[in-house]
Every structure is written in C-alpha cells, then in structure tokens.
C-alpha cells in the first residue's frame, strides 16, 4: 500500500488509529502537546491506540503503526538509522515541532565548527557520532505532514488525528503570522512601537501569542510560505537593529532554514562585521 494514501485502510472512521510518538533530538516539549491536551486527551485516547510513547510510559518502538508522530531533529548517526526504521513501520509520518521540521535551535551548530567543539569538549570525541548538521526529519526520510511550533499546539495535533481518522491529511498551514495577528485585532508591534518582529516570515498557528503581549514574534513556528527574510532584514535594519541583532533574530530558533540563513549571513560584514 502506498504510505502516502493515509486513508486507504481506515477511511470508515470506525477503526482506531495505532499511533506511536517518537523522540529524537529535542526537549520533549512537543510530546507534551499530547499529555497537555486537557479534556481532549480523553477523546484522543478513545480515537487512537497509543502503542509507543515513552513520556506516557509506553515502550514499543518497533511496533507497526498507522501514524508516527516524530519530535526532534536528526543530528547523530544513530538517529539517522532510527528514523528510517520509524518510517518503515508507519503508514503516515508526521513531523512535529521546530526541531523535526527545521532542525531546531541545535541547527545553530550547522553554521559553526561543530566537529571542533566536540574535539575540544569531550575527552573521547570518537565516541560522539554527531552528524555535521542538525537536520529536519524530511532531510532523511519522506514526511507526510509537518506541524510547526516550538512547541507544536495541542489543537494542531488533535486536528491532525481527527483528519486522519477520516482518511485524509489535514490541509497544510503555511500562512503568515501577520494575518492571524490582524484577525485577532492586535496592534502591529513593528508599526505602532517599532518593535522588531518576525511575523511577516513566520508561519501562523500560535494565535499571535507574542504580539498579543506587545512583543515582536521570535519565529517559533518557523518559516511561512514565501518567507521574504531578506526584505524583512532590510526593514529591521531601517528600524535601528544592527547587523548582529538581525542575525540573532533570524537564526535563534530556526538556523536550519535556508531562507533565514541566507538573509542572516548577508548581514555579515555590514557595520559591525563580527560574524556571529
């Protein structure tokens, strides 16, 4: 069966989905989107049969499942091998959260001499099998759906399960945060306060949490569609941020995103020129 046809076997809505939640290079926060579901947790537990979920005490990583939710980036050779096994045993693979979808905070090392750090830090560096880059899951195996967020929202997870129960993937969401912010009736912090904000290049989904508190967006939800990071960087400079500050903003959570990387690295050599 084609694993990209998620509904082929369970489109009648009667069967419970067999679900695994796997963890890779990450902080465990996204898995908590399940455990923090509140009242939805009961409905979730009825709708799915959780077979592997270490945070919930279920330990069967090799089980074949309908849906594997994968948290975390792929950053070691062991992880690269394990994600292939997860892929083989799942009909649908859903990458959840910043680490699994862009490489996460740890992708900062993609821009640095990570091998040198290992050599300097560990007494036996040969025992550290770290890959040159912290990569999103999609860089290693086929991914059916990505849910953004740092962490991913409970709502996105439950809607994904609800959609898969009906035999379809949910519609991907790559809309920009600005639209979500405007729908919420919030004041644009860039325009009304001169606050730097990554909203124009960041995917919606958080409910415009930071702008709602008068702060600029830090980009937890990763790149939106058409992330015009270069144009935004130019505007942030015009608002008074220096090159280093613009770089820090763009790279803080999603250093692995090419559009952010390019815009950030173009800032090098301007004014302060201190690189990182």
């Amino acid at each position: 069966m084609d694993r990209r046809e998620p509904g082929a076997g369970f489109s009648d809505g009667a069967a419970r989905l067999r679900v695994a939640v796997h963890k890779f290079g990450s902080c465990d926060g996204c898995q908590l989107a399940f455990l923090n579901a509140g009242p939805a947790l009961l409905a979730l537990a009825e709708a799915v049969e959780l077979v592997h979920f270490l945070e919930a005490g279920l330990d069967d990583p090799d089980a074949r499942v309908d849906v594997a939710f994968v948290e975390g980036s792929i950053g070691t050779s062991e992880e690269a091998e394990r994600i292939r096994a997860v892929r083989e045993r799942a009909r649908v693979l859903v990458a959840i959260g910043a680490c699994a979808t862009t490489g996460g905070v740890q992708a900062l090392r993609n821009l640095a001499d990570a091998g040198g750090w290992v050599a300097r830090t560990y007494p036996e560096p040969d025992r550290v099998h770290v890959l040159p880059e912290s990569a999103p899951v999609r860089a290693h195996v086929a991914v059916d759906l990505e849910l953004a967020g740092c962490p991913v929202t409970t709502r996105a997870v439950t809607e994904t399960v609800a959609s898969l129960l009906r035999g379809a993937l949910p519609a991907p969401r790559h809309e920009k945060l600005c639209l979500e912010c405007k729908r919420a009736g919030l004041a644009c912090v860039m325009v009304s306060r001169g606050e730097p904000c990554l909203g124009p290049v960041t995917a919606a989904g958080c409910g415009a949490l930071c702008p709602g508190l008068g702060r600029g967006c830090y980009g937890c939800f990763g790149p939106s569609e058409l992330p015009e990071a270069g144009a935004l960087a130019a505007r942030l400079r015009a608002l008074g941020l220096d090159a280093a500050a613009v770089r820090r903003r763009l790279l803080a959570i999603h250093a692995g995103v090419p559009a952010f990387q390019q815009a950030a690295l173009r800032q090098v050599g301007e004014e302060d020129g201190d690189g990182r």
Partner: protein
Amino acid sequence: MPEPGWLPLQRADALLATLREAGYRVVGPQVADGIIRYGPLGEAAALPWGVRVEADAGRWRLRRTGEGRAFAWANGPQALKPLLFAPEETLWRTDADGRPAPQAPEAPPPTAVIGVRACDLAALALLDAHFLRPGREDPWYAARRSGLLLVAVHCTHPAATCFCASTGDGPEAREGHDLALWELEEGWLVEAAGAAGERLLAALPLEAPPAGAAERARTEVAAAAAAQTRRLPEGPLQARLFERLDHPRWAQVGERCLACGSCTAVCPTCFCHAAEERPGLDGSSARVRRWSSCFTEGHSYIHGIVLRPDARSRYRQWLTHKLGAWHAQYGRSGCVGCGRCIAWCPAAIDLVEEMEAIVGDA
C-alpha cells in the same frame, strides 16, 4: 432636513444615552494598546480625547495633546470591517454522521457605531456591494449589517498617510450615515441623515449652535482636505494598470514587499477570505471562513500550481484589482484613500508612491 443641533462637550454622554434608549448597544473608538480600536463604549469619557495620530509609511503613533477633542485623530488599523465581515466565523457544522447543520448567523443586537469617518462610509458601501449582491446576499454579513446605525464624524485631523480628498471619499462624510458630528473645541454640531437619524436627533437634548459654529466646522474640514499631501494619480486607472503589467516597478516593489497581507487586512474594502475545515475528534466538523489575502500562496493555488508564486505578482494582483478591476466589478475604484495600507505596511511601502511610479506619468 431638520436643522443641525448643538451638543456641548460636557453633555457628550447624552449621545450615548439617547442611542441606548433607542435600543442600540454603542460601539466606539478607544485608545488601547497604543492604537485606536473600536469596541463597546460605556461612556463618552472613554473616547480618545486629546490624542492625535502621527503616521507615515510603516509607522503609526499616538501623540497626547491634552486638547479637549475626542476625534482629533485619523483612523486606527480597523473600523467597520471587523464588525460586519467577521475575521473568523463558522458557516456550518456537520455531525458525526456527516449531516450538515446550519450555523445560524449570529444576529448581534442593533449596534450604533460612533466615530465613523468618511473613508469608512465609502468602504462600507463597497463591502455592501460585494456581500449584499442582490439575489446572493451573504447571510452572515447581512445579519450584522441589518441592525447597524452609524454616527459619522467629519474628519478634521487627517494623518500624513491620508488621501481621501484625492479619491473623492472624504474628509466630509456625505452618505451612508444616520447622524454626523462636526467637532469643535466646545461641542458637537449634530446633524441627521435619513429617518432613523432624524428620530434620534429629535430625541437628543440639543441646544442652538453658537454663532458661526457651522462655518467654523466647515472651515476645519476644508482645511483637513487641503492639508492632505498624498494624492492618487487622477482618473480611472483600470486601463493604465492593465497596460503596464510588465512595468519594472512591480519587480522593484516585489523586492521590498514581505507578502504578509497586512495591507489587505487593514484595507476597509478587501473582502477575500478562505474556507477551512475543522474536524473534531468526536466525528463532528466545522466549516470556518476567515480573512485571507491575495498575498497568500493559497489565494492562487490550483492543485500543485501557485499562479502567483512571488511578491511581485501578488502585489500586482492586489493593486490591479483594487485600483483597476474593481471599476468593472463595482463601478468604482476599491480604494477610499484611508491610507491604512501605507501606515500599517511593516515594510513601509507607500501605495501612492508606487502608483505614481507605475501609472502616474500618463
């Protein structure tokens, strides 16, 4: 038409009381989070007294002056649009058996909005033309529109981003309102338009206007028109825009444009919305529509192809529609000169400047 009456500022609350007695809940502008926002208005003291707006491309700030005026400011990011065309609403629901159940349009209580500007009245007429097309009225919009009463305020303090005089939509409110206020230092000159307005005017505890009030008020509004420095190029731009689809300026503005859709969200006439399905774990589902934008990928998506993949083509779509195709669709330009798209563009793109560059030389 009855003569305008005079409401001294110290009795401003009488306006709210009269509206409430007539059965309206009152919505009006207030300062919140550093902007001016429309919301339920409890008392006249909550109006934005003593503030002015300083705006430029990509910048909007309130400045406190302490002067005794409630309407000495140009518009904030939104006015009537969110009250009528909801940012997000459920159209229908389906139960666990897939049976559709109508989500009856929520009919708000009759609502009076105080402080509506000429540009927003012009925009409302355009939203009406779109959502209340005869035979295909949008029931959700219509439910909110039916109980709406509008108290306009003729604009005396436009921002630097305003250009309503050049689109012919302001600063004087001419139609679409029920009551209109001319604001002077010591009071409001109140006039009525239409039957509902006249009934309210009769119910207000008005006095005879001080000598020369009407002249002074008209002079202030005329000065507001003269103070506007931005002007859209003259005449219908439809043909000129569609002749210049390959103008190099589209690519130049595309370089700066973030394609964030902020301009379309604050635009009082932009009506594009997207539908999405919200499945529940219990088998039910909701069909929801929400504000969207021609700056989104989804706007021009047809299975696997995005017809407008870059900021250049999305910006061009917006303006060829707003200032061009709107003429064919609704008999006039879709721009009312409110300047919101200029002030609230996080990239500081100025529509007037772009139009001058693209069609201004003809």
